[in-house]
């Protein structure tokens, strides 16, 4: 398997050995990674809840997005960098983890959902009536985003406990 050999190569690097030798590397980066996820999910949830009309109803969608999404992207950068390092410290182990695979799929879906939203429905956001509910497709995007992020958090936790983690 192509992916597996990449993971095996990652596990055999000097960087990998250094990361696993270190007693502070994993706890520190795991903590930053968790804070990153909380930042991403915590901020995007506000946008999702606004799209669904469940929070911040008094503020226009565009104003909410404009203020909050930069924080989401910063949190994502933090999460991505620390996540990549954490992954490369135990690549083969994670390759065999079903929870990790599901988490990655959900991450891609969450990204596609956000991208699609911004490139299509959101372009018209300035014309939405602030007093009325957001268009159905926008609400659907919000609901999907909520579901994906809850899934990402749950599968992320499951990686540490799920079957497959101790295989390799």
């Amino acid at each position, binding site marked *: 398997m192509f992916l*597996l050999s990449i993971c*095996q*190569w990652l*596990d*055999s*690097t*000097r960087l*990998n*050995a250094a990361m*696993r*030798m270190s007693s502070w590397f994993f*706890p520190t980066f*795991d*903590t930053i990674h*968790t*804070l990153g*996820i*909380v*930042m991403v*999910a*915590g*901020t995007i*949830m*506000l946008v999702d*809840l606004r799209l669904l009309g469940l*929070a*911040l*109803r*008094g*503020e*226009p969608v565009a*104003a*909410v997005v404009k*203020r*909050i999404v930069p*924080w989401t992207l910063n949190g994502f950068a933090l999460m991505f960098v620390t996540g990549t390092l954490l992954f490369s410290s135990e690549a*083969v*182990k994670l390759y065999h983890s079903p929870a990790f695979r599901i988490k990655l799929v959900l991450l891609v879906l969450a990204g596609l959902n956000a991208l699609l939203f911004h490139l299509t429905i959101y372009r018209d956001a300035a014309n939405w009536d602030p007093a009325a509910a957001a268009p159905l497709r926008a609400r659907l995007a919000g609901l999907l985003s909520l579901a994906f*992020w*809850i899934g990402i*958090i*749950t599968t*992320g*936790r*499951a990686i*540490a*406990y*799920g079957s497959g983690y*101790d*295989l*390799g």
Partner: protein
Amino acid sequence: MAIYLQTVFEWMESTTVAQTIRHSAKLIALLESIHLIGLTLLLGTILMVDLSLLGFGIGRAPVWRIAKELRGWTTGGLVIMLSSGPVLLSSEAIRCYRTPAFWVKMALLVIALIFHFTIHKKVAFEEPPALRYRARWTACLSLGLWASVALAGKAIAIFQPQEEPIIQSTAPLPHPPGAPRHS
């Protein structure tokens, strides 16, 4: 007092609920996820209010309006955390009792809660808006306190109590690709 508390913690761990969770990795993972989702909701909404206090609000919306619109969700996050937390605690109550990070977290949590429902609430809902320095201090304290609670929570898992020997990995490094790390 200490002996009384220890008895309470021992009793917590002896309950059926605690024992069931203790022996199920799936239940622990699920409860931790719920706890984290509660944290996400709590921190996300508080961050938004604190950003407004710092002058990075949504459009020209006054802070009190943002605070009012998000109050319910902050409470929701808190309720999720405060109901999943004790259940998680019960599954390893004795270990937590011996872990300093746990007590640090509890102390910070009490301070954060008192601060949130007194000073923070008062300043966020002030009309006309609080003076700039008052708003800034409140926001910084709020963010600092809640971040500390979260970090102390993570520390519970990282720092094991002193009574137990610290288990060091004896796996050879780097281990052969694909080979089982533990026999």
